């Protein structure tokens, strides 16, 4: 049995005029020590997916279908107290913006110790020791003094390190990192990424990395899931997808990356923008932006086609492959 298994997950937001589905038919599983990546544009549903694993979707959103099985227990309908025991303890999260994730009026120490105390019987003194130890693990200089400081006294990179230290406090099995470097300086981004990778490897923690940065994800994840308009449209081993993407959307994303070897050329971009969740599109959600779209794309929703080690939700995978071979 996989450590975490997401089955047919569907998340909807109830609005005044009906509800919209932010996630549909999400299926994947995570093994111990796995590193998976979830990529997509803003609005593709990546963050919603991250939050829904811990059932942290706030009103008016809710999980309307499917299961999130963690060691066989379904987090989607677990009683609040049992769920609380898993959050921050077995599965923890790193948020996007370290400027916003730490409470401005509580000291770093308070925010670390309270997490330890929420999950086990421990004295303040021992909790402090563990907190210091975790701060050392994320290479924070003079951790003792940091504990008595407030978030505003620390830099963004430092704060994200503290958030990572908090996520490691209870030695979780899974860490969900929701764009952990987006809000940081480019020079610090790499450091933080390396740190997360190192800590996950050393502690045998499974990592679910959510990002829009393909560069980042290609370096650290083994499995890749590409999301578009609330669905996974391509999944498979990261290397295979980066080197030979099958779905036109993934190809577009990869082509849009700036290349060091080509100078003075315009970056390629995917024309148009992602459809709003309110739009009722039939067929493949990507068809209005797809250069290859045919009639069938606007009529029926594509199912997954196996291609190498990957699964691709596109009607035209076979056809495009044949063309490639011919040309």
């Amino acid at each position: 049995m996989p450590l975490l298994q997401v089955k047919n997950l569907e998340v909807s937001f109830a609005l005044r005029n009906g509800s919209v589905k932010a996630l549909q038919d999400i299926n994947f599983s995570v093994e111990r020590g796995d590193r998976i990546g979830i990529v997509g544009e803003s609005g593709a549903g990546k963050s919603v997916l991250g939050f829904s694993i811990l059932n942290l979707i706030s009103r008016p959103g809710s999980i309307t279908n499917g299961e999130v099985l963690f060691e066989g227990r379904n987090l989607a309908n677990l009683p609040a107290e049992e769920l609380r025991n898993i959050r921050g303890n077995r599965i923890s999260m790193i948020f996007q913006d370290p400027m916003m994730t730490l409470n401005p009026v509580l000291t770093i120490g308070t925010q670390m110790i309270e997490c330890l105390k929420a999950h086990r019987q421990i004295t303040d003194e021992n909790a402090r020791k563990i907190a210091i130890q975790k701060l050392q693990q994320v290479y924070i200089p003079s951790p003792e003094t940091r504990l008595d400081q407030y978030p505003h006294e620390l830099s963004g990179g430092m704060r994200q390190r503290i958030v990572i230290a908090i996520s490691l406090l209870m030695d979780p099995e899974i860490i969900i990192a929701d764009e952990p470097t987006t809000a940081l300086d480019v020079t610090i981004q790499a450091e933080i990424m390396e740190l997360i990778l190192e800590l996950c490897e050393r502690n045998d923690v499974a990592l679910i990395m959510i990002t829009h940065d393909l560069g980042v994800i290609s370096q650290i994840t083994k499995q890749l899931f590409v999301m578009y308009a609330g669905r996974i449209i391509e999944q498979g081993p990261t290397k295979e997808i980066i080197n030979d993407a099958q779905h036109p959307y993934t190809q577009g994303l990869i082509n849009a990356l700036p290349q060091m070897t080509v100078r003075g050329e315009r970056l390629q971009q995917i024309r148009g923008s992602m459809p709003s969740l309110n739009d009722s599109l039939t067929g493949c959600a990507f068809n209005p932006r797809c250069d290859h779209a045919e009639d069938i794309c606007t009529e029926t929703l594509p199912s997954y086609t196996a291609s190498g080690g990957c699964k691709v939700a596109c009607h035209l995978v076979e056809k495009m492959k044949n063309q490639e071979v011919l040309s």
Partner: protein
Amino acid sequence: MLAFLIKRLIQAVVVMFVISIISFSIQDNLGDPLRELVGQSVSEAERELLRDKLGLNDSFLVQYVRFAGKALQGDLGNSYFFKKPALEVILAKLPATLDLVFGATLIIVFLSIPLGVFSALKPQSIFSKLIMGLSTVGISIPVFLTAICLIYIFAIELSWAPAFGRGDTGSFLGLWDTSFLTIDGLSHLILPCITLASIMLPLFIRLIRSEMLEVLQSEYVRFAWAKGLSPSRIHYIHALKNTMLPVITVGGVQIGTMVAYTILTETVFQWPGMGFLFLEAVNRVDTPLIVAYMIVVGGIFILVNTIVDLIYGLVNPTVKLIRSK
């Protein structure tokens, strides 16, 4: 700390200067003080003589400098009516007014926080909707009407509480006469305090509710959930502390404003405080008393705001009043 207090003191001087100019110009334009000082039988020539003697014919600037010079020595002139120093007359009435403001503040603090927090945590519940509905009603009813209704229901119909006056007072350490120390005094306090609180209470409930709703949506509260903290810790430690920051700021200003609101409440309840005295002074064109009232209230405002800023500095770590090291 010291630097903060000195800065505050300089601000206070500026504010008091502005208040003194405003109140002095009012004095200068508020009818003829001679009419109150002397009877109708005094002839115009004698009046003119008296005006000269009192310096009322001097220019505005000369009069102001004279006024300010005396005011700095604590002399705000004699009340025309009481024939006693105006400041003394006002300060004698201060304890009664502060009793009222203190009582109303207690009511506001102990009701607005639980009600505001509850209606933020359970916005869909019927009780929350009831609180919100009643608070709209509370904001819209004028103070004197609330007072009259309370007197009619609780003093006249039910005779649960006295309708007017201050009742017995007890001495607090021999320094201060307060109604809080006797049963009779407390019973007299109830209705006026509720009346005074009725204006601010709905405002604070709504303020706390909306601040709390906003804080509950914040990333750090979401992160607190992701850490697996208990709901009570998230609500009362993480959310409430942040909610109270803007509430403290607004609260300081509003407590000051409440001192001014006592005018209406004290009048309806015949409460022997500063506000009641002020209204009488206006009726009698007792200008030194009016000026003294404005300056004392201005001073209270500054004092309350300074205290609130100090408290704010203690609660909010991002504000450093006290430079460490």
